[in-house]
């Protein structure tokens, strides 16, 4: 029969993790449009070590691509290098997604590949999920269809992304002798990536995910063109192994639940507003959606009020840092070039050559508490690059309490 307790629409990290987080014993189906879980990869693949520790307890995780210990931030002719031991790493997204899918399969979750969900409709006691193969019925759906966030719209939620919250991206997978496997590089020079940045994330073996994201509202030339000229300037001899386009949206949608519906991950626009990183929040929101779905199924109560528990849990978990980072993103996008020059000059000056620990931030911030908020922004900004949520929390508590 085509009836399920939960149908998860989209087999990326958010959807697979959500499915796996539902108590065993229910009939769960994940529907993925592509032929293979984890492919094609449209991702820069950076995650924080904290994310890894929070969500994966096993040793010898098969999807870790490379660990690195230095971060270089560039702005025009200035740059700063910071030691960030054990803070960030690169995953192999293909293996990462497969790992989550295998975990889900072990819990008897069905995964249906090569099937496109083109519509979903709320009925009296179920959601009708329409695919290009056949229709399905579910008591509730978890929508994880990524940046498009198409199905949420069909179910009556406002999922449209404003241009100002959208980053238009292009990425090469390159190989070059100049790549330092131990160093992650960000370049915020506005001449290349207005409102965004250029990145080089080391994959190991002198390879990198090298790309850029430009704020769609501020974009004059397309990233595909600018990345090409940036490469000619800074990595002239690099060999391009693969290229891909992508889009990253930030600024969570106003309501991430609806009748018999929970929206997770990129579809809920839960990406880091400064870095654009989406995996951490995909797992966070996915985990909460799974928890809430378990309660709803157990109590057999599909009321809107029960669904809203999910929104509450997500906001309690992470909303504080997302909200502050959105403020920072807004302030940065409104800065004139002169103001940006000052912002980055101070930012890079503060951090160059330092080894950064959470405790340093604590004492420094404490002494700076009475000074202008700009300093706080600098820390917020760099904390965000280091993807250390714990650090960010401390910083923001101190600055905005």
């Amino acid at each position: 029969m085509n009836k399920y307790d939960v149908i998860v629409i989209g087999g990326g990290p958010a959807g697979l993790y959500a499915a796996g987080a539902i108590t065993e014993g229910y009939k769960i189906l994940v529907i993925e449009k592509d032929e293979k879980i984890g492919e094609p990869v449209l991702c820069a693949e950076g995650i924080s070590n904290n994310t890894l520790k929070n969500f994966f307890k096993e040793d010898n995780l098969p999807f870790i691509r490379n660990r690195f210990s230095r971060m270089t931030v560039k702005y025009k002719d200035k740059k700063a290098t910071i030691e960030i031991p054990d803070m960030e790493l690169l995953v192999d997204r293909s293996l990462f997604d497969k790992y989550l899918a295998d975990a889900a399969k072990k819990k008897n979750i069905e995964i249906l590949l090569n099937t496109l969900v083109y519509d979903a409709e709320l009925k009296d006691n179920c959601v009708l999920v329409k695919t290009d193969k056949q229709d399905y019925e579910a008591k509730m759906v978890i929508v994880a269809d990524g940046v498009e966030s198409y199905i949420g719209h069909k179910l009556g939620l406002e999922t449209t992304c404003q241009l100002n919250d959208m980053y238009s991206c292009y990425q090469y997978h390159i190989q070059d002798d100049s790549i330092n496997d131990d160093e992650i590089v960000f370049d915020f020079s506005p001449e290349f990536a207005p409102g965004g940045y250029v990145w080089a994330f080391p994959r190991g073996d002198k390879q990198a995910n090298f790309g850029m994201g430009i704020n769609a509202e501020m974009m004059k030339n397309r990233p595909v063109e600018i990345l090409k000229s940036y490469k000619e300037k800074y990595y002239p001899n690099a060999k391009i192994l693969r290229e891909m386009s992508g889009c990253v949206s930030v600024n969570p949608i106003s309501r991430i639940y609806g009748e018999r519906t929970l929206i997770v991950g990129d579809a809920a626009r839960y990406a880091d507003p400064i870095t654009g990183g989406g995996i951490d929040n995909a797992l966070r929101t996915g985990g909460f959606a799974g928890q809430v779905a378990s309660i709803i199924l157990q109590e057999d109560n599909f009321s809107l009020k029960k669904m809203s528990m999910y929104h509450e849990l997500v906001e309690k978990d992470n909303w504080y840092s997302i909200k502050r980072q959105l403020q920072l993103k807004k302030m940065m996008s409104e800065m004139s070039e002169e103001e940006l020059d000052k912002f980055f000059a101070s930012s890079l000056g503060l951090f160059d050559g330092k080894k950064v620990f959470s405790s340093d931030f604590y004492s420094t911030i404490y002494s700076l508490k009475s000074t202008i908020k700009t300093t706080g922004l600098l820390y917020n900004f760099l904390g965000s690059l280091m993807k250390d949520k714990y650090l960010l929390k401390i910083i923001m508590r101190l600055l905005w309490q």
Partner: protein
Amino acid sequence: MDYIKVDKEKCGLCGGCVAVCPKKVILMHKEHLEFTDGCIKCDRCIKVCPVGALNKNE
């Protein structure tokens, strides 16, 4: 004739156009984009595309 023309060679199927479309008239298949009825000609999909694969059909 559709208002938008897609250059299939360029399109990387990243979903950005679908994300910004206020009417969600673009459906992303595994290997192509489909434009359904209801386009309000806001041109946001053209604007956001990282590779310039979308243009007005003139």
